[in-house]
């Protein structure tokens, strides 16, 4: 029972994070929401008893990809859609 509740909570959080990534106009906020999505996905992998994939997802998805997005945003504009 507790597992079903945890799965429901984490999947709901993932859906909310994905919708936030889609809706944010500020690119830094969108990158942070994507990091939250990856973190929740790592917890979901762990609950589904795949700790190997969970470690890789936590390191690559939540850590390195978010930072790569941050570096890319630093080189371009902060908002979606505006020129220069």
């Amino acid at each position, binding site marked *: 029972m507790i597992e079903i509740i945890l799965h429901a909570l984490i999947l709901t959080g993932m859906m909310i994070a994905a919708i936030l990534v889609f809706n944010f106009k500020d690119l830094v906020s969108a990158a942070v929401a994507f990091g939250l999505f990856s973190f929740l996905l790592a917890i979901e992998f762990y609950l589904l008893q795949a*700790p*190997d994939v*969970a*470690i*890789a997802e936590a*390191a*690559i998805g939540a*850590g*390195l990809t978010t*930072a*790569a997005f*941050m*570096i*890319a945003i*630093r*080189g371009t504009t902060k908002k979606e859609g505006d020129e220069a």
Partner: protein
Amino acid sequence: MQMSSIVKTTADVLFPFILIYGFYIIIHGHLTPGGGFQGGAILASGVLLLLLAYKYAESTNVVRQVVMKSLESTGLLLFIIAALSAMMLGAGFFFNWLSPGGILFGDIVAYGSGTANLNTGGLIPIMNIAVGIEVVGAISVILLALLSGIKEKI
């Protein structure tokens, strides 16, 4: 963009712990979840912490691109030498000739449950170490190349 001293101090304090955790994940790759790729990614996230906390010119004094490129090549060379060493002994590609009975990682795995022995596995821990060295070099080179394109602004 100059980071505050809070960020710099946190990066300095956390960096050795992240390194230790990455090495732990790599060296226990044949016993616990994780392995070369995961540990190498954790090590690279430690390098990334330094790169983000300090300015580009300051951090490249510590994290040099030449060193990271040579780490990547060293990992690949170690991997292919470990794989070909079995062929030199007359067995197949990547035959695990070190286990059991080799000088390194050569213990026989005990039957049944209990605490795991780190000194087992033969070529598998060596392959994990090679993959870990390769991954930390490759990801650091990618991040350095990303950062070098915008170095005038930070």
